[in-house]
Structures are given as structure tokens and as C-alpha cells.
């Protein structure tokens, strides 16, 4: 911090000149600049983008048909001609199924988190900003959901509603609302305690305007980072539900379901049986590392 001009006579004529700073202009520009200097986050983001693009474009990539079975070429090992990642227990091409499987798995990972972010985030910001009895009501309801371990909650919800993609999405959304709500509530409560929110209240602005201008910008970063870290959990939970037969139904390619159906092959060809797990692992660790990188880049005082 630089001292200002020593003159005590500041009647509007003497203007204090700003101290030169190296910091750039916009907040998001500086976040972008810090992200660009973070190779781990960049690599993870690149892998994820590649996965998403590949799975979205899978029908046009000229791969084998992921649904085409063959009794003759079952459980080919890795590196087989024409099937370089082998074939599964029904003779379907593993590479094609893994790429195709990304569609459902990524969709099942991202969608519930997005919905939970909208619902849980709004509830949490509401609870945090209004406080008092509203906070009490919202947060105690969330505590009820918290009483169940998330896997158990997802299983029981999916079990009650029946298998299928929509029900899996619904149950995963419900599972993720409480943690996102809790994080949103705590950061909002923290931000609400800052004097600039009081100053905004003192300016006579409406609560909605205060939340929009002063609260949202300060809480969205941490909430988004947390939500990003949940995507990997969602992928694993969705895979788990499929594994238990509560999620996606066969013959759809989905990583969790593939793990399930390949489990008999674990004694015959363990590497092959682990491949869907490797995909889940890569995706979730990329999401986790990326959310860590985002968190670091969004730290204002860094």
C-alpha cells in the first residue's frame, strides 16, 4: 500500500494519483490468467473436453457398432486386431462401448448436479440471506436428507421409483440438493455478514437487487467449485446404481452397467473388466482436479 500525497489540503483541487499496480482489469480476466498458468487444470480440462466431444460425436467417428453382439468373439483381450480394447462378454467392441458409454455416464454425472445446483443453490442462498426462521426451516429439512448416507438415499429413492434413466436422474438430483444447499447457505451467511451488504441495505436497495449485485457474485464461485467436485460423485453414484440394476437398463452402454455385466469376466480377463472403472476414475479425478484448480484461480486475494 502506498501512502498518498503528503498534502493535508484536500479540498477537491489536489487529487490523489493512483498507485501503479500490476493487477489487470476484470476479475474474470484475472481468473483466466491464473488458470492458464496451471498445467494440471489445463490438462484435466483438455481430457474432459476430449471425452465429452468424443462421446457426443461417437456415431460419426466410424467406430464399431456398440450394440452388435457376436458369440464368436467374446472377451477378446486388449490389443486384438479390429478390437484394440477387446470385446465384452457378448462380443461387443469395448472401445466403441466405452466412448458411447461416456454419453450416458457424463450426462448422468452433469445433469443431476446442474438441477441440484439450481434448486439447492437457490434454497441455500435464500436461507443464508434471509436467516432466522426461514433458514431454520430450510436447513432442518436438509438435515433430514443428511441423515441418510448419499449412496443409501440414492438406492432407496431409485428402488422406490424403479429403474430407468429418468428416475436415476431424479434420485441423484435429490441426493445432491442438501449438500449444495448447505454449502450455499454457509457462504451466503458469511457474505451477508460483510459490511458491504449492510451498506447496500442502507442504500435502500431491494433485497433482490442486493442478492443479485452483491451476494451472487461473491457466492457463485465457491458454490460452482463445490458443484464441480460433485460431478465425479454423481458419475460414480450413477454407475453404482446401474451396477445394482437400478439405473440404466441393458443393452445401453454405460460405464457402471458395463462394470456390472463384465464382473463375471474378472477371472478370465481382469484388465478388460476394469476398463469401465478406469474411465470412471479418469473422469472423476479430472473433475476433482479441475475444481481444485478453479478454487485456487478464483481466490481473489491470491
Amino acid at each position, binding site marked *: *500500500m*502506498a*501512502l*498518498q500525497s*503528503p498534502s*493535508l*489540503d*484536500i*479540498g*477537491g483541487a*489536489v*487529487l*490523489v*494519483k*493512483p*498507485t501503479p*499496480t500490476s*493487477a489487470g*482489469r476484470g*476479475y474474470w480476466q484475472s481468473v483466466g490468467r491464473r488458470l492458464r498458468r496451471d498445467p494440471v487444470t489445463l490438462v484435466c480440462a483438455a481430457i474432459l473436453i476430449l471425452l465429452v466431444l468424443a462421446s457426443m460425436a461417437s456415431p460419426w467417428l466410424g467406430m464399431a457398432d456398440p450394440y452388435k453382439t457376436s458369440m464368436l468373439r467374446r472377451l477378446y483381450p486388449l490389443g486384438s486386431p479390429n478390437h484394440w480394447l477387446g470385446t465384452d462378454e457378448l462380443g461387443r467392441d469395448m472401445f466403441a462401448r466405452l466412448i458411447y458409454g461416456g454419453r450416458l455416464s457424463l450426462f448422468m454425472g452433469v445433469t443431476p448436479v446442474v438441477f441440484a445446483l439450481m434448486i439447492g443453490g437457490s434454497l441455500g442462498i435464500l436461507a443464508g440471506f434471509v436467516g432466522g426462521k426461514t433458514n431454520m426451516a430450510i436447513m432442518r429439512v436438509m438435515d433430514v436428507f443428511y441423515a441418510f448416507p448419499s449412496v443409501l438415499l440414492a438406492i432407496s429413492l431409485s428402488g422406490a421409483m424403479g429403474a430407468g434413466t429418468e428416475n436415476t436422474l431424479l434420485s441423484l438430483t435429490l441426493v445432491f440438493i442438501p449438500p449444495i444447499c448447505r454449502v450455499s447457505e454457509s457462504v451466503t451467511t458469511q457474505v451477508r455478514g*460483510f*459490511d*458491504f451488504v*449492510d*451498506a*447496500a*441495505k*442502507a*442504500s*435502500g*436497495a*431491494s433485497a433482490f*437487487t442486493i442478492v443479485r*449485485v*452483491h451476494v451472487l*457474485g*461473491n457466492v457463485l464461485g465457491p458454490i460452482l467449485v463445490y458443484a464441480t467436485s460433485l460431478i465425479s460423485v454423481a458419475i460414480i453414484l450413477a454407475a453404482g446404481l446401474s451396477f445394482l440394476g437400478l439405473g440404466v437398463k441393458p443393452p445401453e452402454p454405460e460405464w457402471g452397467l458395463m462394470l456390472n455385466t463384465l464382473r463375471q469376466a474378472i477371472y478370465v480377463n481382469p484388465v478388460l473388466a476394469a476398463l469401465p472403472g478406469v474411465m470412471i476414475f479418469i473422469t472423476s479425478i479430472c473433475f476433482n482436479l479441475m475444481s481444485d484448480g478453479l478454487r485456487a484461480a478464483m481466490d*481473489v*486475494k491470491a
Partner: protein
Amino acid sequence: MDTLLPIQDRGGPAQPLLLATGLRKHFPVAGGLLGRTTKVVRAVDDLTLSVAKGETLGVVGESGCGKSTVARLLIRLLKPDKGTMVLDGDPVDEPHGITVNELRRQVQMVFQDSYASLNPRLTIAETLAFAPRAHGLPAAEARERVRDLLTKVGLDPASYSTRYPHELSGGQRQRVNIARALALRPRLIILDEAVSALDKSVEAQVLNMLVDLKTELDLTYVFISHDLNVVQYLSDRVLVMYLGKIVELGPVEAIYGNPQHPYTRALLSARPSMDPRKRTHEAPIQGDPPNPIDPPSGCRFRTRCPFAEDVCARVEPPLADTKFQAVACHMRVAGSGHSKAMAA
């Protein structure tokens, strides 16, 4: 919109700008089974004060005596449990009076923590334009006002508008905070320890700026501080608080030159002197203030007062007028029963 023009004086110079009567704020302390409220912190208890037009009212007292609660009550960031406020003849938040939002147009506040009171995500221009925009000022006019405000507080608009709070020094940030308080063209500004966190040299600059702004914009200040020298420099009248109560209130010369309450005397004598020949003669007050959850009966200062007698524990001393100032002490009330009081 006409709401953003300076507000005209209504009641004439003799009518107090702000009159607060019997303000009380108790904070419940959750405790016991199921978070039932078992105790209350008596932060401000039946406080009555008036702020005359154009004056600077200094508020002093130890940490925790309720100074900041008073500030937040006056701008209604806290709702008082009891008591009324009248702004230039208009009752606040009452059927025939003005709304809290109208009060906040005319009364603004500068906070102590210059960093926490600025939104780190907004540029200085966005922060300053927020209140005028929220009151419906068009964007172009708001920009013009931001330039004007920055110039008023001695910051060059061209180079500061696009900056973020973390790019500014403490003194510059506090200037921005003062500019924000001026944005709605208020009549009364509450300065809650507004210069306490600044370096001495920067503090002097900001204080001088405040003095200049006051004359230029015809402002009234409530200046809250624990720094007795700064309050003496700036104030016309001084209010001394102890545990949520007023113990002494009067013109700055009377309070500093002839303090009547033992607490005021102890505070003033605890001031370090620059002159080694002027040593502290009166015994300094001992210990910490009592817990405001359970304040002493009668006079709240009696537990630390060297002159405390039976009557001080039994009867709460009223804030009584003396020759120059108002004092809440049995020793200054004729016939109160205190041995040092004059006979009735």
C-alpha cells in the same frame, strides 16, 4: 427522478435533524435446552439523543459499550426493540411518518473496516453507482455522479473508476466508502470508527477531508470513535457511553474541560499526555467493563467507580442537566442520598 436531489430542510435550524427517544436493543443469547433464549445482552438501554442540524456529535466509550449498536440503530440496520426516531419532524417507520427507506436516503453510514465494506467483485464506479441506480437514476447520470463523488473525496475519477478494492490502499478505500455514503446526497452521516483503522498521517488527511465536506455539502455528522483526541478535534458535542447507557452528554469544551462523571474523568485521565510534567493523577479505572448480559443494578458504573455508595446500587441515576452538560451520576444530583451530593 426527483428523489435524488438534495433534500430540503423542513423544520428550520432549531429543529433537531434526528431525535431518538428511548432506543433500546437487547440481543437474545441462545442457550439452555433447545436454544431457548435465557439471557439478553443489553447492548443499548433506553438511550435518548438528539442531533442538531449541522453539528458533529461525537460518541465515545470503551469497546463493547454499544457505540456501534447505536450507529446501526440510527440507520435502522437494526430494528430497535423499543423507542422512536424522528427525522426533521417526521416520525420514522410509523403510520404518519416516513419509511425506513426514506430515512436511509437522508442518513448514511461509513463503516470501520474499509475492505469489508466494499464488494471485492465490483469496481469502484460500480460500487458508487449502486445506490443511485437502485433509486432509479439513469446510467448516464449515475456515471456523472460517480465522477463527481470521486472528485469530492479527492480521487481522480479517470484512474480510480475501473479499479477494484484490493488495488487501493486503506486510506483510498475509506475515501471511496465516504463517497458511497455521499452518493444519495444525505443530510446525516454516521461515521462508525471511520478513521480508526487508518495510519495516523492518512487519518489526518481523511479527517480534514470530512471537515471540508461537511461545510461544502451542509452535512451533519455522528462521529463514533474510541479515540478521544479525534473526537475532541471534530465534535461540537460529545456523548459518553458506558454499558449501553449515556453517562455524560454536553458541549465538547465542557466534557473535555470540566468532566463531571467519574467515568468521563477516568477516560480522559487515561489519555497519554505529550507533556512529561502533566502526569496522570487520578487513579485509572480498574478491570474490564462488567458483562452487559447482567449489568450491575442501579448505576452501571458503580462496580468500577471509586465513589460508589449504597445509593448507587439501589437507584439508577437519571441523566440530569448541570450547568453545561447532562450527567448521570448521583454525586451531581442534589438530595440523591450520595454523601458527595449537594443537600436537597
